[in-house]
C-alpha cells in the first residue's frame, strides 16, 4: 500500500478537525474525497504534507512503509508527495523557471543526483509545458503573481508534472475553473496517471469526476470518512446533496 492513514486525529489551535480518519491508497489508484465545507478536507491535505500548525494528536500516516509524521514539509516533498494548492501563493520577483529549478535540484540532491544542466532543465520544462497547454511566457512570470484563477491551477498541474510525484493530492483544483481549464487540468492528470503513482482528489463537486474517473470516492463528514464507494457514489451525492449523509448518520 502506498499510503495508509490509521485513526488520524488532527487539531488546529487545539480544536480537533480530523477525528479518527482511516484511508488506504494503493499504487495506480485515484481516490476522490468529497464533502461539505468545513468537514476537514483541506486539513487532511495539509496534515499529510506536514504543514506547520496542524497538530496530529493521534494515529499515523504511513507512506511507502514509513510513518511520515514529524517529517518536515520539504522532506515529505522529497519522498514524492505533491500538494496542489487550493489557493496557490504568489512569490513576487521569483520566476516559475527559477522556482522550479530550485525545487527540482533539491529533489535531485536528495536522491543523490547531480543538478540538471541549464539545457536539460529547459528541455524538461518545455516538454511538460505542452502537457498543460501553458503559454511559453508564463514560466518567465513571477510565481502566481497576477495570474488568473485558471492560470494558477494550471501552474499547479505543471509543477506536478515537473516534479513527477508518487502521490499527488489536489486540493479543490477544480474550483474557479471554466470548462476549458478544467479539461486541461484533467487531461494533465490523466496523462500522468500510471501504475507507479496515485492521486487523491479533494473536491466539492462531481463535475471534475466526469473528466477524471476515480477508482474510489469517499465522503468526509465531521472529520471522518463516513461512506466509501465507487465513482457512482459521486453521482449519487450530486443528486441527493450532502444532507442525505447527515440524515443517514442520524439514523
Amino acid at each position, binding site marked *: 500500500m502506498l499510503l495508509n492513514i490509521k485513526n488520524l486525529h488532527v487539531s488546529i489551535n487545539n480544536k480537533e478537525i480530523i477525528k479518527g480518519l482511516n484511508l488506504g491508497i494503493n499504487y495506480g489508484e485515484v481516490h476522490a474525497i468529497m464533502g461539505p465545507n468545513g468537514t476537514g478536507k483541506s486539513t487532511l491535505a495539509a496534515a499529510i*504534507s506536514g*504543514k*506547520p*500548525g496542524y497538530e496530529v494528536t493521534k494515529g499515523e500516516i504511513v507512506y511507502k512503509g514509513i510513518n511520515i509524521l514529524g517529517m*518536515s*514539509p*520539504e522532506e*515529505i*516533498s*522529497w519522498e514524492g508527495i*505533491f*500538494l496542489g*494548492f487550493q489557493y*496557490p*501563493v*504568489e*512569490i*513576487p*520577483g*521569483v520566476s516559475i523557471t*527559477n*522556482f*522550479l529549478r*530550485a*525545487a*527540482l535540484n*533539491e*529533489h535531485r540532491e*536528495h536522491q543523490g543526483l547531480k543538478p540538471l544542466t541549464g539545457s536539460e532543465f529547459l528541455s524538461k520544462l518545455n516538454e511538460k509545458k505542452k502537457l498543460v497547454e501553458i503559454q511559453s511566457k508564463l514560466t518567465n512570470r*513571477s510565481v502566481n503573481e497576477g495570474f488568473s484563477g485558471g492560470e494558477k491551477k494550471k501552474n499547479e498541474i505543471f*509543477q506536478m508534472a515537473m*516534479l513527477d510525484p508518487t502521490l499527488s493530492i489536489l486540493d479543490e483544483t477544480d474550483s474557479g475553473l471554466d470548462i476549458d481549464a478544467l479539461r486541461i487540468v484533467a487531461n494533465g492528470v490523466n496523462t500522468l496517471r500510471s501504475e507507479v503513482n496515485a492521486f487523491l482528489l479533494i473536491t466539492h463537486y462531481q463535475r471534475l469526476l466526469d473528466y477524471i474517473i476515480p477508482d474510489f470516492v469517499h465522503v468526509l463528514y465531521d472529520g471522518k470518512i463516513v461512506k466509501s464507494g465507487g465513482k457512482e457514489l459521486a453521482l449519487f451525492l450530486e443528486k441527493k446533496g450532502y444532507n442525505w449523509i447527515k440524515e443517514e448518520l442520524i439514523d
Partner: protein
Amino acid sequence: MKAGKDKIIDEVTQNDYKYGFVTDIETETAKKGLTEETIRFISKKKNEPEFMLEYRLKAYKKWLSMKMPEWANLKIPEIEYQDIIFYAAPKKREDLDSLDEVDPELLNTFNKLGISLDEQKKLAGVAVDAVMDSVSVKTTFSDTLAKHGIIFCSFSEAVKNHPELIKKYMSSVVPSGDNYFAALNSAVFSDGSFCYIPKGVRCPIELSTYFRINAANTGQFERTLIIAEEGSYVSYMEGCTAPQRDENQLHAAIVEIVAHKDAEVKYSTVQNWYPGNKEGKGGIFNFVTKRGLCKGENSKISWTQVETGSAITWKYPSCILKGDNSNCEFYSVAVTNNFQQADTGSKMIHLGRNTKSTIISKGISAGKSNNSYRGLVKIAKKAENSRNFSQCDSLLMGDRCGANTFPYIEARNKSSIIEHEATTSKISEDQLFYCNQRGISTESAIGLIVNGYAKEVLKKLPMEFAVEAQKLLQVTLEGSVG
C-alpha cells in the same frame, strides 16, 4: 506554531560573518586620539603638498565647532574620538612598482577575500584599487587604463601627481564642512581611490575599490573622487569588509562624483563591513557621505547599493541634478539583522530643467534590527518639468524588528511631477510552506523570496557583483523568517 517561527528566525539570524579574520602584519600607526598634531602627522606621512595640509586643518577647525547629528533614527553610543587611532598603515617599502614588492601577507588577505591583485588571475575586465586601513595597497591595470587617458590610482598618488585636478574637484560636491562626518573625513582622510575619465572615453573595464579595515582600534576614513568628462562613461564598484572585533570601529568616508555634459557614471556598492555579533557587540559604525553632481546637460549618475554589513549605517547617496535633462537613479537594498541599525536613503536635488530622478529602495529587516529609509526630493523653482519617482518597500522578518520610512518632499514649481509609493510586507508562512511543499528547504526559500523582492535592484548591479550580492543576501538572512 509560534515556537517554530521563533526557531526559524533564530536560525536565520545565527549565521557567522565570513570575513572576520585578522591579518597579522606589522602596522605603523599614529598616536591615539585626534589633535592638530595628528593631522600634521598624517599629512607628513603622506608627503602631502602644503595645500592639502591647509585643507585638512581648516576642516578640523570646522569639525571642532560642529555637533554629532542626532536626527537619524539610530541609537548611536558615544564615540570617544580620543580613543581612536586615525592612521594605520601596513608597513611597506617605498613606492611599489610591481606586485612582487607587495607583502605576501597582504596579497593573501585580498586573495582570501576573493580579490586577486595579480593581473594574470584577476576577474576578467575589472581593475582593482585595494585599500587596507589607511593606505592603498595596490591598483591593478593602471597602465592599461592610462592608454585610454584614464587615471585610476590611489587618492594619495593623485594628490602628488594630479594636484590640479584635486584642487579643482575635491570638495566641489561635498564641501569639507558639509556635515559632521564629512568634516571629520576631510580632516583625517588617509587614502581612497581617484578616477578621471577623459572626454569621450568609454572606460573599457569595470573599476573597483576594495576597502578592508584590519588594524584594531582604528578608524577608516577614505575618500573617492570620480570625474567623468564630457561624453565619457564609467562603471565603478566598491566592496568592503572588516575583521570581527568586540569593540566598535568607525568608518567615515566621502565619495564625490562629477559628471559633465553627456557623461554617465554608474556607482555600485556591496557594503559588508563586520555587523557585530548576535548580541550586538562590536561592528563597524558606518557614516558615509556620497554625493554626485550631474554638472552638465544630459549627464547621468546611478547609485546602486547592497548594504548588508555594519552595526550602524548612516548613508544617503545623493545627487544634485544641475544640468538640464540630467538623470539620477538610486537603487538600494539594505538588510539589517540581529542588532544592526540602518538609516539610509537618498537625496535628489533638482536644479536643472527636465531633470529626472528615480529612487528604488528595498529594506529588509530581521532579528531585532531597525531599518529606516530617509529620503529627500527637492525640486527648485527653475527645475521645470522635472520628475521624480520613489518607491520604498520594506520587508519584515519576524516580529522583533522595525522598519520606517521618512520621505521628505519639496517642490517649488507646478510643472514637475513627484510620485511616491511605499509598501511594507512580511515573508508569509504560506509562502514558505508553498516553497517547502515543492521541496525547497526553508533557507533556500528565504533566499529565493528575498532575491525576488530585491530583484529590481540586483539586476542593476554589474554581473561580477550581482552574483556575490545574491549570495550575500542569502547568507546574511540565513534562518530568519516568520
